[in-house]
């Protein structure tokens, strides 16, 4: 590999400019994507550290590793860091930032400076969150439920609320940039029906960013103001209504689940056709199901509140609407499966992640139906069943999609290939570790183990030991890519412009791309996923 380093590199976005200033003041969407990649990886490991401590505490039935109060802080900060500082920005801010302009055939996002601003807002929010963690943490649960958060908790609720408030503006600006870019910056010939499905799901995600995030912003601001100035809006002793807080909170935070899963679905929709060498089955259905998920996603929030004292009729309507989300989700799963049918499938690393995604997302989605059912929800509400369900969606779904996408576009982003064998191995480790961690939690929850307790009856120990063992395996599965991806930056094989023989405008550019992506504005005359007409590169053919 020493020869690779000697070869004169073509000018690209990475070597166009040097120095810390050229990174911190860049307006290049690809460099901003890398800034995000580094920062969200940092927060992923912060959140992962909390997860590790939680699992270690739950290894034994007694509360012996940390104090009860510390445990409350651990699961709170695990949730807040993972949801707001990793999962929500994960795919949109890294892969989305990198790919949206390239996929539409533009030189940059519509508002490059606002894009940079959004990263700085993320960092400002992140630093405040770190300050909150280091000065004692917060113990309200990631949901900030009132009146505990407003009147009783004497931890750093204000700091955490403001951190997430600031971070919300970063999401809003990213979403705004994507919607405007997809509307106004498409290259000639790039019609809506020729757009890659990743763009459709990014578009749907951005709509949720735009319409949902402001609501959590004002809600958290009201919580902060209630703590700071003594407003009584959510305080039941003064006639305020905590259930109103829950409505406002979940009006964003339920759609936020779709912010996490939709981009991962977009990634999977790119990977599956590429490694099946087939046109995606039912393009329009998959595209429209993204929009449908975003729309339905706004109409189901109260299914988090079935036991919070909302009216039975409201609960009925929200239950039915929640079932409806299964329709577009199933449309996607069936269409991906149909895409693979009779395809020429190769089990490369991104494909392994995509296949893992389909399986885990299906389990996560189906158990979601249990929770949408009014009767069963009463039984499993606030148990480990819920924990397992949403981790299947967020970790099994969103995180698998993110890792798959990162591997798939790694050659484009860095110009280097990662070691394939290590990639496949770690994909398998993640899949096995994940199931071992979270499947026992379904059973625990069904048997009645409540969430957010740091002690439990001894009969639950076996399943908890499985879960903790799985979490350790999962940790290895996340550390491995970290190591070999960094290794590949220097020692990886040079990738070439289109190592997978993939469709899409981003693969028509050099790897890594130049600062302005395209030398000339491309003109699109073909449909997305025209795999029947894309020849496989010689190397890939030989590998099969």
């Amino acid at each position, binding site marked *: 590999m020493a020869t690779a380093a000697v070869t004169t590199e073509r000018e690209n976005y990475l070597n166009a400019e040097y120095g810390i200033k050229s990174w911190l003041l860049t307006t290049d969407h690809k460099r901003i994507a890398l800034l995000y990649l580094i920062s969200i990886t940092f927060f992923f490991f912060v959140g992962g550290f909390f997860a590790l401590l939680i699992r270690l505490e739950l290894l034994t039935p007694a509360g012996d590793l940390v104090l009860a109060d510390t445990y409350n802080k651990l699961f709170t900060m695990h949730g807040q860091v993972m949801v707001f500082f990793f999962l929500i920005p994960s795919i949109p801010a890294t892969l989305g930032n990198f790919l949206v302009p390239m996929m539409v055939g533009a030189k940059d996002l519509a508002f490059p400076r606002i894009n940079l601003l959004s990263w700085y807002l993320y960092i400002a929010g992140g630093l405040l969150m770190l300050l909150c963690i280091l000065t004692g943490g917060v113990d309200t649960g990631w949901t900030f439920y009132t009146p505990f958060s407003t009147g009783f908790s004497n931890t750093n609720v204000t700091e955490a609320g403001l951190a997430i408030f600031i971070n919300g503006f970063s999401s809003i600006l990213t979403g*705004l940039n994507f919607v405007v870019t997809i509307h106004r910056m498409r290259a000639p010939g790039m019609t809506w029906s020729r757009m890659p499905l990743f763009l459709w799901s990014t578009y749907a995600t951005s709509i949720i960013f735009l319409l949902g*995030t402001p609501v959590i912003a004002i809600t958290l601001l009201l919580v902060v103001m209630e703590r700071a100035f003594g*407003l009584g*809006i959510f305080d039941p002793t*003064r*006639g305020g209504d905590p259930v109103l807080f829950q409505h406002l909170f979940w009006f964003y935070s339920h759609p936020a689940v779709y912010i996490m899963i939709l981009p991962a679905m977009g990634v999977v929709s790119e990977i599956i056709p590429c490694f099946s060498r087939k046109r995606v089955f039912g393009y329009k259905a998959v595209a429209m199901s993204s929009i449908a998920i975003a729309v339905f996603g706004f109409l189901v929030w109260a299914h988090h509140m079935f036991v919070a004292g909302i009216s039975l009729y409201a609960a009925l309507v929200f239950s039915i609407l929640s079932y409806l989300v299964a329709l577009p989700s199933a449309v996607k799963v069936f269409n991906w499966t149909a895409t693979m049918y009779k395809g020429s499938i190769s089990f490369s690393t991104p494909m392994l992640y995509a296949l893992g995604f389909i399986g885990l997302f299906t389990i996560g989605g189906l158990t979601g139906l249990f929770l949408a059912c009014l009767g069963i929800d009463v039984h499993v509400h606030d148990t480990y069943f819920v924990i397992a369900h949403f981790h299947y969606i967020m970790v099994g779904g969103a995180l698998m999609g993110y890792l798959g996408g990162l591997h798939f576009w790694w050659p484009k982003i860095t110009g280097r290939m990662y070691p394939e064998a290590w990639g496949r191995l770690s994909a398998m480790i993640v899949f096995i570790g994940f199931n071992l961690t979270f499947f026992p939690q379904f059973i625990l929850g069904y048997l009645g183990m409540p969430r957010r307790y740091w002690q439990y009856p001894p009969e639950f120990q076996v399943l908890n030991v499985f879960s903790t063992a799985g979490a350790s395996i999962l940790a290895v599965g996340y550390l491995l890519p970290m190591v070999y991806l960094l290794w590949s930056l220097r020692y990886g094989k040079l990738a070439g412009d289109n190592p997978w023989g993939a469709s899409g405008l981003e693969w028509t550019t050099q790897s890594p791309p130049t600062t302005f992506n395209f030398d000339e504005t491309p003109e699109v005359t073909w449909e997305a996923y025209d795999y029947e007409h894309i020849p496989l590169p010689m190397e890939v053919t030989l590998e099969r």
Partner: protein
Amino acid sequence: MSDSPLLVEHPEHDNPALLHHFATPEQQRNTASLGMWLFLATEVMFFGGMFCAYLVYRYWYYNEFAAGSRSLDIWLGTINTVVLICSSLTVALGVKAAQLGKRKQLVGLLLATLVFGVAFLGIKGIEWYQKYEEHHIPGHSFDVSDIIQNYPQIHIDPSHSQIYFSLYFAMTGLHALHMIVGIGIFAFLTYYSWKGKYGPEYYTPIENGGLYWHFVDIIWIYLFPLLYLIDRKPLR
């Protein structure tokens, strides 16, 4: 490449305002305009959360809301509404002046907008100070015994009154914050208009700044009746 890539002009165009990643000035203008409208949509959702809370509590605690509303100074509120509508007029005329390239007129209109904006905040400050003196600010020294004495006919629960005033200060406070941001934007626009940056070829910032100003104005148009005019009939 020493400068930010944004400053690199497109070689095919001689329009210095056209950024490198746009093909035509029309595309750039449409893009900026769509971005602004979407931003305003997020602002609607932002204020929407509070309007939602207002709706719920006004329905539950109507008496306290009506009594709280009567305690506001309707004259100052009305004057402020007129001031803001006038400021929107000067903004609208300013956009026209920019499109026609009338620089002096543009600067004059923007300055007038700034004056109206500052006047609004000043009057709002007087109103808040009145509330401070009356102990109507939520918190430990909150006291509505004066309101209760004024309306012995109706039952008023002080804690529910506090919710009205919580919403009053949260809503007008965030509105005022938006006004302050707007004044900052317009100070910026006035400076660059005076420098002659905007004209018939390039007036997008004036147009988008104007959209923001009108939006903040419209929020007030809703806040005024919701907070001041709940029930002004004389009580018997």
